[in-house]
Every structure is written in C-alpha cells, then in structure tokens.
C-alpha cells in the first residue's frame, strides 16, 4: 500500500468518507459563485467546479486542517481557472455573438452592465475580486490561491475596481 493510500485509509478511519465529501460539498455554492464571476460563463463555471471536486476528491487525504477546506478548494479552483484559459484557446468557441446572462429579471440591465464591465477586466483580476469580496478570503489567502504576492493582489483589485467604477459611471 503506498503512502498516499495509507494516509487515505487513516483519514477514512478518523472521518468517514461520506462526511469528508459532505464537507467538500458544503463549499459548493461559494465555489460555483466564484467560478461564475471568474469565467462569466455558466457552462465553464460548472465545468470548473466539477473539475475542482474531481481534483479535491483525489487529494483530500492531503488536507491536514479541515478548517482550511474552503481556502484549499478555492485555490484548486483558481489554478484550474487559469489553466482553463490556456485550454480553451485550443477549442472551438461557438457562436461568439451570443452573450450569456444567466438570470433575467428586473435588474437585468444592471447585471448586464456589470457583466460587461467585468468582462473587460483580466481574468486574474476577476479572480482576485471573486476570492476576496465574494468568497471572503483575506488578501493573504487570495494571494496564495492565485500564486502571486499580496501586493500583486492588492494592486489588481484596486486597479480592477477603479476600472469598474469608471465604466459603470
């Protein structure tokens, strides 16, 4: 039995697998919301969350602090989101004239404006905003999730918010 499997077994002995999985899934909504803000595409976002869970379930035995699950999952997802960009460049993009806005409603116009404004920001800036303001990660954890320095995150967020203010008027 390899080391990873031994750890998995030990972990399973302490905490049933179903409980672990439940804990992972409890963070699903915030993952999905963040993914949507980062990708601005519902299909990509759901793919991203799916991939995040797939990776997380394979690596769950490496988690030492259950309290850090949320940050850990967001880190996986953010890295995958950046990787996704590279992958999508090789794929056929369908019907570029169709812009997706997920929910219609009375605030549709405002949502459309904000989505357009967000779409003009780099994906990394959207990720920083999503992780910090939507998922509530401190700057240090946001930086760790994105694999950059805290100052880079701060700079990206400040610049991004300023651009949004300018566009939104």
């Amino acid at each position, binding site marked *: 039995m390899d080391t990873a*499997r031994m750890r*998995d*077994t030990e972990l*399973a002995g302490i905490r049933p*697998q*179903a409980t672990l*999985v439940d804990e992972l899934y409890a963070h*699903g*909504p*915030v993952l*999905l*919301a963040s993914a*949507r803000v980062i990708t601005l595409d519902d*299909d*990509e976002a*759901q*793919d991203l*969350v*799916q*991939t995040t*869970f*797939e990776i997380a*379930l*394979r690596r*769950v*035995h490496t988690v030492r602090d259950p309290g850090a699950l949320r940050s850990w999952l967001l880190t996986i997802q953010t890295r*995958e989101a950046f990787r996704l960009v590279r*992958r999508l460049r*090789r794929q*056929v*993009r*369908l*019907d570029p*004239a*169709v*812009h*997706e*806005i*997920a*929910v*219609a409603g009375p*605030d*549709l116009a*405002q*949502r*459309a*404006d*904000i*989505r357009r404004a967000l779409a003009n920001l780099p994906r990394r800036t959207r990720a920083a905003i999503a992780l*910090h*303001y*939507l998922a*509530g990660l*401190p*700057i240090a954890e946001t930086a760790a999730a994105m694999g950059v320095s805290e100052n880079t995150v*701060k700079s990206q*967020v*400040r610049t991004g*918010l300023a651009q949004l203010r300018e566009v*939104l008027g």
Partner: protein
Amino acid sequence: MHDEMPALDPRLGDFLDAERRRAEHDFPTAIVRKRTGSPAPRARRGWLVAAALSVLVIAIAAGSWSALSQGLGAGGSGWAGVEAIGLRGMPMSLAILDADSVIAARRPATIDELRAHRNDTDARRMALTPLAGAEWLLAWAATPCDVSGILTASPRVLTLAVDAMPPCTTGVTMRGAVLRFAPSIVPAGLALTLVDPPEPIAEADAISIANQVAGISDVISGGVDAVLGTYATLVQVEPNGITSGDASPAPQVNPDLFVWRVDIFGNTAWTRVFVDAFTRQVVDVVHHDAFRLDVANRSSVGVVVSVGSDMSGVPHGFEPGQRGTTFILWSNPTNGISVEVLGTPGCSVVATGGYPTLRPLTLVIEDGAAPGSVKLSTVNTVAASPMPLPANSLFCGGG
C-alpha cells in the same frame, strides 16, 4: 476581513450577492453528486443504458484498457474513496455553423463518469456511433487537457475529425451526448468517417464497435434491472460481438457504486458508474420546426423587429421597455435566423444580426453610441414561459 481594501461599488456588491444567492440555489442541481445508497429509480433505466453504452464506446475509442486495468487493479481498491461528479441539465454546446451542417463540439454534456486517474495518454480520442432509431452517440474521453473535434454532417456522410492533443496524465472523464436526428434523416443510411490523425480508427472497426454497442443494449438493460437492489452488475462483452451478458453483484469497495467489468478484445477494464452521476443529454440537431426568440427593447426608441428564417418572416413593434416572444417557423434550422431592426418612423434598417443557433435566445436592443441608433446583443436564456407580444402602433410593411 478585507484588509483595508477599497470598498466595493454598491452595484458590484449587489451583483456578487446575487451570484452568491444564485449559486446557493443552483448548486444542488447544477453539480450532481452521488446520493449515497439510493437505488436508481426505474425511470432512469434508459439513462443507465445510455450511460453504459457510452462507457463502452468511449472506452473502446480511448483504447485505454491497459491504463484502466493498471489503475484499478484486480479488486479496484485503488479507487477507494473516489467519487465522480457529473453535470445535470447541461446542454452540450453544439451549433450548426453553416449551410454545410458543420457541428462543432466545444463542451461535452456528461452522461456518465468513468475515470482512470493514472497515466491515460489517449484522451484525444473521440467516437461516434449509432444507437437505436434516430440517435447517435458522440462520446469522448475528456481530461483537463480535454479533446476537440469537428463533426461534419454532409449528405449521407458524417465525418468526425479529432484534433491531435498532447497526452494528458490527469484523470479521464468519459463524456458524451446523444444526437437525435430528424425523422426525415435515416441514420442507418449515413456513412461514418472517422478522421483521427494520430491513430486512425478504421471504418471497419467503427462498424464493429457500433454493432457491439447496439447488440449489448439488451444485456445491459437486463443488468440494470438486477442492479436495482444490489447496486452492482457485471457485464461481459466477448470479442467479436456480444455472446453473453450476466447481471450479478460484483465485489466493490463501496456498496453504493456500480462496478462494471467489461472484457473486450481480450482486455479488461473496471469502471465505476454512479447512480446519479450521469444523465442523458439529448441534443436535437435538426428536430426543431420553430425557433423561439424573446425580444427585450431596452433602448429609448421604438423599433420594429423583423425576424426571418428560410421559411418565413415575423415583424413586430416594440416600444421602449417592451418585451415579448416571437416564434418563427423554419424548414432547415441549419440556416439559422436573421434579425433586422427597423427604426420608426421611416422603417430604415438600423441594426441586423444573424444567429446560427438552435437554442432559444433573448434579443436585447439597447441604445447605440450615435443618437437614435441601437445595438443588438443576445442572452442565452429566455423567460420561463413565452411572453405575449406587446401592444403598440409601431408598424413597418405594406410596400
């Protein structure tokens, strides 16, 4: 908590809050997880069959038997604790792009999950094979590197050209979608050409695969019946066709997993199929006889929107703020629809758009940069139910 970062614009804050609420609402259905211990409802039998078929097709196409068997080992214990997550209610991104009926697959809909997370290097493979009736199965092995290809449907010939992709050493997810052809098309009359530059699949092999898939459906269906109470089944496929099939409990790590063992061409693979981890996605390729378009005029001017297809045209006026639903008949959906927005008065064309998609859309009309001008955009969703066309006096036509 926000480390003295700038405060959010309230509108962005509202947007993020709305996204949070939407995800809370959507997550349980958007991301499907296995329900521990719940048997497959009888209604899902068809889905199970489709899923099993796709497992076979993809696995054959992926040529990943040795990797699978190495990854799983004799008892499959290497998979302990791994769950699969599928997607539900996700349409596959297929679009008719031009008059030659080119269909491009960007993103798969998940029918099932089958993973070998150890050094599968055949993720570039895709397969297309006929199912029963008017349905074909387009399936492939997807990894984080994913695969891509172009499916071309010209008269009597389907061509699947698979892009060469770099090998991927991460987990493999088997995905597919069922393409349903219009009654006017006889799938059996279509020839299939597979183009896979790195490792071509001979047409004869494709036919063999298709025969096997078609032949095994009853066997698997019977297995599904037996599996309802046991959560497991064993299916055996022997070389050169189906000669036997048996349903019986199979050894497994977790009682709520399906374990399939498939023997084909002397190779063995173990896979797991999860009760809730797959759903059948039917994509109507040429099945529609009418297109739905919701129109929302968010501009400050009244306009007449003329929606045209290869069969008819539907004009209707929309005052600022008005919205409504139009339906337009078409004979060949591959031609898509066109939209002309006419200004009033004068009825001059102020904006045009073409939409080669089968999916209902919302056309959004907004003010353009120049005074009196408008710009068009589309939203990939429509109202829950068709809206009545608005009443107004706007009119263009009559010569």
